[in-house]
């Protein structure tokens, strides 16, 4: 029995040593990151390439959730939860539901025009957008999160309710107006 245990210990220790020498911690971290990244990116690609618009919308949700997981993986669960709740839980559902409720003759080919002209136009626009974003993010000097913020939630709360209270409230009012406007429009459509 003891012999067997010793053998197992030996194998385990050898394995751990090898893993350490190969920098396994970093490797695992990176592989998880890349896995989540690929999920998001492939889902996003699927949004563009799918022929069925409902599938596109569902893949959009997958992409949102992948990004949310990335946030959580990068130690900011609050942002991740917000991503889940707002994008995965509300925005995506509304998009999917709106698409499902709209009837088409053939759901399998319901995505937008697939002519070469449209595709080229889309490629140019998205390429330009991608360029802008990447330039912007490359040129920005990212700072380490300052230690004084402490716990990310309380830090966020402090900032939002003191320093940035005005923009916060303005955004809230704006959303409220948008909501009421949407209600009014929807009501009008129903009556006509």
């Amino acid at each position, binding site marked *: 029995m003891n012999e067997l245990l010793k053998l197992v210990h030996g194998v385990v220790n050898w394995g751990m040593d090898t893993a350490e020498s190969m920098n396994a911690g970093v490797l695992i971290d990176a592989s998880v990151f890349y896995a989540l990244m690929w999920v998001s990116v492939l889902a996003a690609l699927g949004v563009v390439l799918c022929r069925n618009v409902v599938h596109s919308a569902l893949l959009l949700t997958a992409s949102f959730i992948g990004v949310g997981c990335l946030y959580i993986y990068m130690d900011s669960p609050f942002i991740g939860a917000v991503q889940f709740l707002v994008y995965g839980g509300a925005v995506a559902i509304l998009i999917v539901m709106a698409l499902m409720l*709209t*009837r088409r003759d053939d759901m399998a080919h319901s995505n937008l025009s697939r002519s070469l002209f449209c595709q080229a136009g889309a490629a140019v626009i998205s390429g330009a957008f991608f360029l802008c974003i990447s330039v912007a993010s490359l040129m920005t000097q990212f700072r380490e999160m300052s230690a004084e913020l402490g716990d990310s939630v309380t830090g966020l709360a402090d900032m939002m309710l003191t320093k940035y209270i005005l923009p916060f409230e303005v955004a809230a009012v704006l959303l409220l107006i948008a909501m009421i406007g949407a209600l009014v429009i929807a009501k009008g*459509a*129903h009556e006509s």
Partner: protein
Amino acid sequence: MAGTETYTLNMGPQHPSTHGVLRVQLELDGENILSAKPIMGYLHRGIEKLLESRTYVQGVPYTDRLDYVSSMNNNFGFCRAVEELAGIEVPERAEYIRVIVAELNRIASHLVFIGSLAIDLGASTGMLYTFRDREEILDLFNLVCGARMTFHYIRVGGVNRDVQPEFIEKTYKFLEHVPVFMEEYKKILLGNEIFMSRLKGISKMSKETALSHNMTGPNIRATGIPYDIRKVDGYSVYPRFDFNVVTGKNGDNWDRFNVRYNEIFESAKIVRQALDGLPEGPFMAKVPKVLRPPKGEVFSRTEGTRGELGFYIVSDGSTKPYRVHIRRPSFVNMQGLNDMCRGYLIGDSVAAFSAIDPLMGEVDC
């Protein structure tokens, strides 16, 4: 801007809440019902045609299969029609026994109604309770005729056999039990806020609409019209008993429910009076072995549990009826379904199916 579109939903014939094989074609705008079209005939067995090839006495068991929840009332109606046609005088004791079993069956049928309404509104526990108590009545019938579902107890000229003292004793016991279980339903169903809000003000029907659809039974009484054949025609020995015609006020589902709920008490009252005054004597009139009613025709109606049950029989003087037509209350009541559903939600349509209380065996005949 693109408009919205309506769509058709076929509720039934296989659907948990259409009470058998009824199919209702709902025209829907979202969850709002624009129209409801009942489509029936899935249980059509041609009983009217079958009765033409049977003798009058052989025809009685077929009526059991019409409204199989209240077979006694159907037997009663058919036998009354045949007796009227053949001029048979039914002994008093038989009439009393008939009234007793018919009213007991009415209670049983209304209990099924309460239970099925409860389960359609999601309160499946309510159904189990009513079926538990209906079981007592079925046991009584088992005692009196040996059957629990299709009795064939009321025969042309009287009843199949006399009631035993044990039956009378147990029926008294059951009548004492009636207020007890009714109190229980009050607790679990009537007092429930959700139950109330699901029924009050839903499927409202005015007196005029109910009359124009020729609705009968609890459905018309719920609108406030005291139309009860037992009172209006005063057939059999009903005029001797003291009972009220229960009516509603608003003609909504709540009233339809309440009318049936309170009718149980009235029926219990009739049964008690009939038991108290049960006369001695024969339970069967002298009916010739081969019944040949004289040439002629008859339209006889009785108050079934679901409304006015009419039998139109044409005799050509032979042993078999020339033509039998059955005026089934459920069938005629179905005309009101559209009015009861239109403008309400899918959830209300289920309550409306229940409240109209159709029995497909009767609708399709």
